């Protein structure tokens, strides 16, 4: 479901927070996406959302926003644009293998267990030309067993209602 209301709710913003946007485009002038020579700006993105236009998965901000918060910190109204972008991603159900693996790890252990994320993302890493970085990444390698957390509240664990009921350790 992609309605403006739903996205604002996901992003934890209220309608009023957006209605103050005065189109000053300060966010556009500082957006990191400019450095990628891509023609897109956060203000346009908000405007689309506000006009009830559908934002598609190939929108440059949906694809490339780095959550750098340059826009949000420059905005006179502190609109948390990267969080709006993430809410749109969520509503579109866009998740790369790496992101799926990250969340799956939280569902299983309550923490990110990196060896699991690497294995789950292996097809993308192999096909995506990451192998050449391995020599540089050796210093990050090291083995440890996963640690299972007793209590965590993701929507997944709440649905299951299992781990969330346990008391404080």
């Amino acid at each position: 479901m992609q309605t403006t209301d739903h996205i604002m709710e996901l992003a934890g913003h209220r309608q009023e927070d957006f209605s103050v946007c005065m189109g000053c485009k300060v966010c556009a002038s500082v957006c990191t996406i400019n450095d990628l020579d891509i023609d897109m700006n956060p203000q346009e993105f908000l405007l689309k959302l506000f006009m009830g236009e559908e934002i598609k998965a190939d929108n440059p901000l949906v694809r490339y926003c780095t959550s750098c918060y340059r826009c949000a910190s420059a905005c006179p109204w502190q609109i948390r644009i990267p969080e709006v972008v993430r809410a749109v991603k969520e509503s579109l159900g866009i998740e790369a293998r790496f992101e799926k693996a990250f969340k799956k790890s939280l569902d299983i252990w309550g923490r990110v267990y990196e060896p699991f994320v690497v294995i789950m993302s292996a097809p993308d890493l192999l096909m995506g030309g990451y192998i050449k970085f391995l020599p540089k990444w050796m210093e990050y390698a090291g083995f440890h067993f996963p640690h299972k957390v007793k209590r965590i509240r993701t929507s997944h664990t709440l649905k299951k209602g299992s781990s969330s009921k346990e008391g404080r350790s």
Partner: protein
Amino acid sequence: MEYGYYPGCSLTGSAKKLDQGVRQVCKKLGHNLTEIPDWNCCGALEYGDRNELMSISGENLKKAEGIHKEIVVPCPACYKNLKDADSDKSFNILSPLELLNNENLLKMEQKNDLKGQVFFPYYGCLLMRPEGSAIKNKNIMEDAISTFGGDIDGEKMKDRCCGGNQLFLNKWVTEKLSNLILTKSKGTIVVFCPFCHMAMKTFAEGRKVIYLTDLLLYVMGENKSL
């Protein structure tokens, strides 16, 4: 001083070096870090539902309730999330950088100096903004480097984005953004963020990438080389 400690997931794995460095430097400063019992992932930047993210992060604060009020959080993403989750400011969420000041830097026992060496103190995004969750002294890495005789470069790039969180999604984005930072700075890259460390390490050719803790431990003679 006694502090609660939230290492976060990457510090138990790929950023183990930062974890060990923070623990060692804190010990030197006379601080005692105790891990929050049963701490869970902060959710990083992976959740589009802010309520869900805040509940994942906030769970850690519940686990710290009644035990710790002051919590040290090294990873900038964890630091931001825990700070945001603490909406009524019941806790004092601190980056280890906030435990450093000119006074305790000057008091550090100096066995090695940094004279004649150039450093690029690189903070990245989440320690610097948004203002509500940013660290207060945004020059603390420069202060540390110059206290021990090192030269600073790349000031204009210190808060630019390396695109670290796109590394496993669209690596060309990270490559382009990191290269922009690398071409406009010189010297050893000093970071405090595991994402920045990985992005810089991946794309910097022939330049060292270190955590500020590595630098401090070298100065204090705990590490033999930089």
